[in-house]
């Protein structure tokens, strides 16, 4: 405990220092040095966080019976709002944050290593590492937050580092636009998050998670008294409003419909960044947020939770359909990410609290973990491919399996994992989600079941298009070759993780339910084969269809498309959501609100001020005839003045 408390600050301080050092002095270092320094330091951070997480899980020190205790390793006052509300910066350790520590440090470390190869020779190499460090700092800060405001603080920092990474190629218009979009959309969602926090904290008089989520006799107690439960605002219970708004914040970061539009565009950033931020870590922040506040959702606002599950279900199928029609490999992966995160949301949405009821919760976290691994793997593999062929488009690829063997194998493993084929990790996590959904809500289950099939289809479509299908028509500019070791090592490492976690789960070595559950108390579950088998079936069918269509270069895909031309076009254009947004921002916000306001300001408000001066000047000019220069007129004015004043003051 002591030891951990001493170590914990370094988890945050080291990346921050790296950011400052690389940011300020990066220019003066040679790129290689900065990369190595950055990676090494992050390696240390990873080690520390692994140590903390493992100590937490396995030392037994933090367990009382089966239950893991929430511990605050340190907590320092950062800003005091009033007597009750204090923003602190601290380190909260519980299974949730421990898992996240592992995920983040693993993926982040891999990305650090990977980038040494991928970003080699790019301008702004040091900048890239600086921002990576900033991101790691922010993300770690986010997951260990002791209070919701700390979370918000790091939430924003994560957002900005995402912005910086997306706009890494700032000389490209598309990158800048994408970065802007990402930032503004998430910012928009953050506003709701903030308002949610404000409402919640106003009524509960605290920001702290341990008070907010304190469970007492089956209720989130202490801060949620009965007055609060009956309080309404505009006819809605305030708690529900607050929690829904907070969820909206999470929805923005986690790219839930309709706030998902930024994520595909965010692929304009360098691929390692996409792997880290837009696949594995940042985008799951929303899920993490909901999980963090799960007791409140579960006990106080179950209907919001239900809403979350519907939104998640819709998003997952929506994104999966779009993914089927995309040709940019990173976009396919992006939509796949959206779909998978929605999966996790669904899992949370259908979960209950405590024991087996909380299966969804566990599954969600489990899926978060596995998904982070294989999705990061997919992205990095995609990066390796892009590195080799210098294009994102599927049309520029094909038949790469011989040329990029390691990439091929690891990519295949990841695809199998995501498609839910045992014994890869994805199968188990996805299976639990389906089970949870099945037990709670059949409709959601049906949707998710279908999505599982779709996932398998589009992933294998991707896989075949890249590695089989036949070489592109115009051939390769130069022969694609395998990436260097510092790029392939992370691929292999993550593939190994994917395989090993899957296998060890299958053999019951590690049970996720022991580690994490909604009430942090371990429980036992078994694989539900009655659900698992059909889901494998769905995956297989998806794979088969993809094989049929894309294994060889044939006319089949086009033919298939011609059957469903309209829907295909819609899916290809992402259901025109972007266009709607564009319309709203350009035509409504800019043209209908900003321009008129600016016009109003210049012409009415400012015009009024100018009018005043104009009137004064005009009055001055117009009255000059009074001063006509004729002495007789002066006298006349004089005497009339006297008479007028007399009349006014005597007879009025």
């Amino acid at each position, binding site marked *: 405990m002591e030891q951990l408390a001493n170590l914990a600050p370094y988890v945050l301080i080291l990346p921050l220092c790296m950011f400052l050092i690389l940011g300020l002095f990066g220019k003066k270092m040679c790129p290689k040095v900065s990369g190595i320094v950055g990676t090494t330091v992050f390696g240390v951070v990873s080690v520390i966080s692994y140590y903390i997480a493992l100590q937490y899980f396995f030392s037994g020190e933090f367990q009382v019976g089966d239950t893991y205790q929430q511990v605050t390793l340190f907590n320092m006052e950062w800003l005091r709002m009033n007597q009750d509300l204090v923003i602190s910066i601290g380190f909260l350790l519980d299974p949730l944050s421990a898992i996240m520590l592992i995920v983040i440090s693993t993926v982040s470390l891999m990305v650090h290593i990977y980038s040494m190869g991928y970003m080699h020779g790019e301008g702004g190499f040091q900048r890239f590492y600086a921002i990576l460090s900033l991101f790691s700092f922010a993300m770690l800060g986010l997951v260990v937050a002791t209070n919701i405001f700390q979370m918000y603080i790091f939430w924003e920092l994560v957002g900005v580092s995402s912005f910086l990474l997306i706009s890494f190629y700032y000389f490209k218009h598309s990158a800048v636009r994408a970065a802007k979009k990402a930032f503004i959309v998430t910012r928009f969602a953050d506003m709701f998050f903030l308002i949610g926090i404000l409402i919640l904290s106003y009524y509960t008089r605290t920001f702290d998670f341990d008070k907010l989520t304190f469970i007492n006799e089956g209720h989130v107690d202490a801060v949620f008294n009965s007055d609060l439960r009956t309080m309404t605002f505009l006819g809605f219970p305030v708690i529900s409003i607050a929690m829904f708004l907070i969820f909206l914040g999470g929805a923005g970061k986690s790219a839930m419909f309709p706030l998902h539009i930024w994520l595909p565009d965010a692929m304009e950033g360098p691929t390692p960044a996409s792997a880290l931020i837009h696949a594995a870590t940042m985008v799951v922040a929303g899920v993490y947020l909901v999980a963090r506040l799960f007791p409140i959702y579960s006990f106080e606002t179950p209907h919001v939770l239900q809403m979350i599950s519907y939104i998640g279900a819709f998003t997952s199928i929506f994104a999966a359909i779009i993914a089927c029609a995309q040709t940019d490999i990173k976009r396919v992966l992006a939509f796949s990410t959206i779909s998978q995160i929605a999966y996790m949301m669904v899992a949370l949405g259908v979960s209950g609290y405590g024991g087996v009821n909380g299966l969804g919760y566990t599954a969600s976290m489990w899926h978060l973990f596995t998904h982070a691994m294989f999705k990061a793997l997919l992205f990095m593999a995609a990066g390796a491919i892009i590195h080799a062929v210098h294009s994102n488009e599927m049309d520029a690829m094909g038949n790469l399996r011989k040329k990029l063997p390691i990439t091929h194998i690891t990519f295949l493993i990841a695809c199998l994992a995501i498609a839910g084929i045992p014994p890869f990790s994805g199968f188990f996590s996805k299976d639990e989600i389906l089970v949870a959904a099945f037990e709670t809500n059949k409709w959601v289950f049906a949707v998710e079941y279908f999505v599982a099939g779709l996932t398998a289809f589009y992933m294998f479509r991707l896989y075949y298009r890249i590695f089989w299908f036949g070489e592109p028509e115009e051939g390769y500019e130069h022969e694609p070759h395998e990436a260097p070791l510092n790029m392939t090592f992370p691929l292999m490492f993550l593939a190994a993780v994917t395989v090993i976690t899957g296998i060890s789960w299958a053999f019951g070595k590690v049970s996720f339910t022991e580690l994490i559950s909604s009430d942090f108390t371990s429980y036992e579950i078994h694989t539900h084969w009655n659900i698992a088998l059909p889901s494998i079936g769905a995956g297989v069918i998806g794979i088969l269809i993809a094989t049929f269509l894309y294994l060889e270069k044939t006319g089949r895909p086009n033919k298939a498309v011609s059957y469903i031309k309209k829907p295909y076009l819609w899916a290809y254009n992402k259901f025109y959501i972007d266009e709607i947004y564009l319309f709203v921002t350009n035509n409504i916000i800019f043209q209908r609100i900003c321009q008129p306001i600016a016009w109003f300001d210049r012409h009415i408000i400012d015009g009024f001020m100018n009018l005043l001066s104009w009137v004064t000047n005009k009055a001055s000019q117009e009255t000059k005839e009074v001063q006509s*220069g*004729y*002495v*007789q*007129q002066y006298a*006349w004015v004089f005497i009339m003045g006297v008479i007028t004043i007399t009349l006014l003051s005597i007879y009025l």
Partner: protein
Amino acid sequence: MNIPVEAYFILSTLLFFIGVYGFVARKNLISILMSVELVLNAANINFVVANRFLYPEFMEGHIYSLFVIAIAAAETAVAISIIINVYRQKRNIDAKSINELKY
């Protein structure tokens, strides 16, 4: 029966406004000056009448009139010298023509 004192005052008022009319309506500066004399005389009548009929104990109005007459003389002298000065420069004492300075 005596003439009511108001009659005197109204007489002076009428004289005063005749003077005012003259000031406003006359064409040349000397005529204007003459109108001013009428105005001053109107005031003088007031003083004298008020002294005689209303407050006869002391000679305030009487003396005031004397001073007004004296000062009017001085004023006229100065005014005429200025008018002559104007005439020297413009060869003209038309009230309309002295409006170089305006607006």
